[in-house]
């Protein structure tokens, strides 16, 4: 080890209490930012995961056709094209689900409300059943073909409890009115907190009510092995469908950390319109067809990322607040470092004179101070990371039941912390740069001391 590095390292141990306090302050800052970043990153994954079970997949392909009368029918009859497109991405796909949905008027006694009903194959979608947080009734009633699982806000609005029967008025795909009777087997929390939890019913029963052809479906939903491949896989599918059939423009939302690339108001309007149409198509809302007529099935492809805007916006704010807190903490710590190094400069003036007299160059004197600051900064940062890891591991072990609203942000009742190397490295770099900056002035002053004056010092 170079002598200046060795001296700098040992200097950190001269006033252990002082180094410990400085390092401790740095550790605290790093601990806070690391935990918040890991928490938000874990939360995004959990929300996506939980949402994917509720929505039925990571990628959603829906189709619409034009009837002879010019009416838009939500259905995929041309299944061959979709099957071909899926072959291209087969290695990435874990599971394929099919769902139907409709915006229905739910009626109970004199109360009524509009909500989305989704037809689910409960045999295949056992993860959905596992993720639902039941507040009343149970899923045993799913044995009945007309069983329904109702989200709590809707149940409250209708004044219905588990075990009762409600009516649902909806339109068939050809536009005729139809009414179905549903047995409410369970009432569940709306874990999305923004009303996106549908009322779930049996797929076959809903298909009957919608008068869908046998073998056709409204929506195909893909679960991927790795969520990170979501955009890549959806692009491949979209590319294939675009080449072989009509497609709706993709909702190109760049949602991460609020870095929305919308350029102008016109573009924004266009994206909003596309988003509204596809959302309506997937979740069964109606909209006026104002498009040019087309032949065959017109496809739309969406991914989970497209729904994540509210969550990502919240995470973005949380991360920004954490960064600001971290920077404020750092500024306070840096004032401490500057003061400490000024003190050190006074304490070691004679020692600096001695080293200079033996032939140590100015830059080496400066570097001793800077290395010492780096060691304190790194020591504090690594301790902070270790402590954060300990806290995150302990908190991760705790199972939190009884907070249904929080369940959507958790993984089976556990908070997940996902340490992101890139953000850890960035925080460490910010810390190191600021530490060096704080120590630089005293270091330069030390280097500029005249050896004769330094040796005369009596401290």
């Amino acid at each position, binding site marked *: 080890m170079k002598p200046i590095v060795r001296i700098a390292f040992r200097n950190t141990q001269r006033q252990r209490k002082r180094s410990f306090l400085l390092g401790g302050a740095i550790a605290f800052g790093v601990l806070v930012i690391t935990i918040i970043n890991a928490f938000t990153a874990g939360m995004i994954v959990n929300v996506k995961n939980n949402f994917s079970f509720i929505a039925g997949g990571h990628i959603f392909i829906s189709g619409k056709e034009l009837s002879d009368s010019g009416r838009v029918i939500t259905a995929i009859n041309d299944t061959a094209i979709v099957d071909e497109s899926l072959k291209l991405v087969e290695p990435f796909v874990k599971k394929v689900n099919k769902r139907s949905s409709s915006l229905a008027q739910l009626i109970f006694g004199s109360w009524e409300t509009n909500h989305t009903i989704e037809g689910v194959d409960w045999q295949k979608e056992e993860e959905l059943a596992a993720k639902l947080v039941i507040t009343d009734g149970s899923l045993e009633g799913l044995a009945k073909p007309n069983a329904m699982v109702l989200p709590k806000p809707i149940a409250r609005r209708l004044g219905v409890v588990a075990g009762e029967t409600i009516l649902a008025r909806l339109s068939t795909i050809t536009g005729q009115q139809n009414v179905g009777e549903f047995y409410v087997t369970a009432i569940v929390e709306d874990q999305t907190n923004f009303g996106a939890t549908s009322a779930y019913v049996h797929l076959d029963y809903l298909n009957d009510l919608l008068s869908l052809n046998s073998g056709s479906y409204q929506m195909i939903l893909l679960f991927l092995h790795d969520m990170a491949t979501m955009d890549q896989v959806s692009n491949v599918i979209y590319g294939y469908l675009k080449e072989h059939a009509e497609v709706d423009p993709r909702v190109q939302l760049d949602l991460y950390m609020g870095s929305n690339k919308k350029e102008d108001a016109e573009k924004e309007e266009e994206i909003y319109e596309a988003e509204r149409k596809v959302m309506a198509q997937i979740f069964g809302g109606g909209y006026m067809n104002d498009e040019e007529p087309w032949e065959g099935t017109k496809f739309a492809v969406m991914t989970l990322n497209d729904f994540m805007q509210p969550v990502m916006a919240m995470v973005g704010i949380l991360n920004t607040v954490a960064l600001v807190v971290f920077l404020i903490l750092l500024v306070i710590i840096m004032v401490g470092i500057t003061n400490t190094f000024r003190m050190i400069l006074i304490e070691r003036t004679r020692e600096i004179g*001695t080293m*200079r007299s*033996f032939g140590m160059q100015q830059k080496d004197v400066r570097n001793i101070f800077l290395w010492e600051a780096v060691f304190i900064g790194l020591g504090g940062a690594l301790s902070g990371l270790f402590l954060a890891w300990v806290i995150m591991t302990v908190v991760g072990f705790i199972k939190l039941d009884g907070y249904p609203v929080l369940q959507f942000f958790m993984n089976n009742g556990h908070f997940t912390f996902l340490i992101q190397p890139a953000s850890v490295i960035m925080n460490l770099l910010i810390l190191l740069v600021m530490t060096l900056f704080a120590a630089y002035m005293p270091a330069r002053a030390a280097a500029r001391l005249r050896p*004769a004056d330094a040796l005369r010092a009596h401290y």
Partner: protein
Amino acid sequence: MAIVELDNVKKVYPLGKTEVQAVKGVSFTIDKGDFLCIIGPSGSGKSTILNMIGCIDVPTEGRVIIAGKDTGKLNDFQLTELRHQVLGFIFQSFNLIPVLNVYENVEFPLLLGKSAMSKAERSEWINYLIDAVGLADWRRHKPNELSGGQRQRVAIARALATKPQIVLADEPTANLDSKTGETIIELMKKMNSELHTTFVFSTHDSSIMAVADHIIRLQDGLIVENVHRSAGGNGRNPSEAAVKP
């Protein structure tokens, strides 16, 4: 052959709004292998002259030539290099680096610049110096675990580490009891005769004067006596070969 040459050197320090003339025009030479004592009362300019010979201070006027180089014409980097290559220092209060042990303190000057020695040669040389100053059993001890005399021995070994041509010692025995002081002087004298290193002292210590072969007496920033004695002189009669300025 002169290794140090001072030519009409003056040094003025600003003191508030006034100026203090610490050295008022001093000229002398020091030969290679000299064991020189600069003596004089406090404030006579001993330390100032020592600092100028040590290249840690420069004269206000006049020339200081060390190993053929005019220090007034060198910048800080060159002066530092000159100190590293030509000079060694021994201080009154030892000035060891507290975080380094005995071995590392002695090794320290060798690690500062380019060294011709290999790692093995360096280690052998440091061990030789530590043995020579009688601290073989204290190699791994930190300065705060040593007595004053032991610390000054480390300082002597450190001053000799780079095999300097000149060692400057500013009152090296002032913080030691007389017995330890004498041992230290003997050690330096031994190094002077074995390694032919030039020693320049500023001191009040009569036992150093007794073994010196060149004595310069200062008063009020001027030389009042410059005495050369034959090597190995007992110092009982320093007036022989005296050169009055």
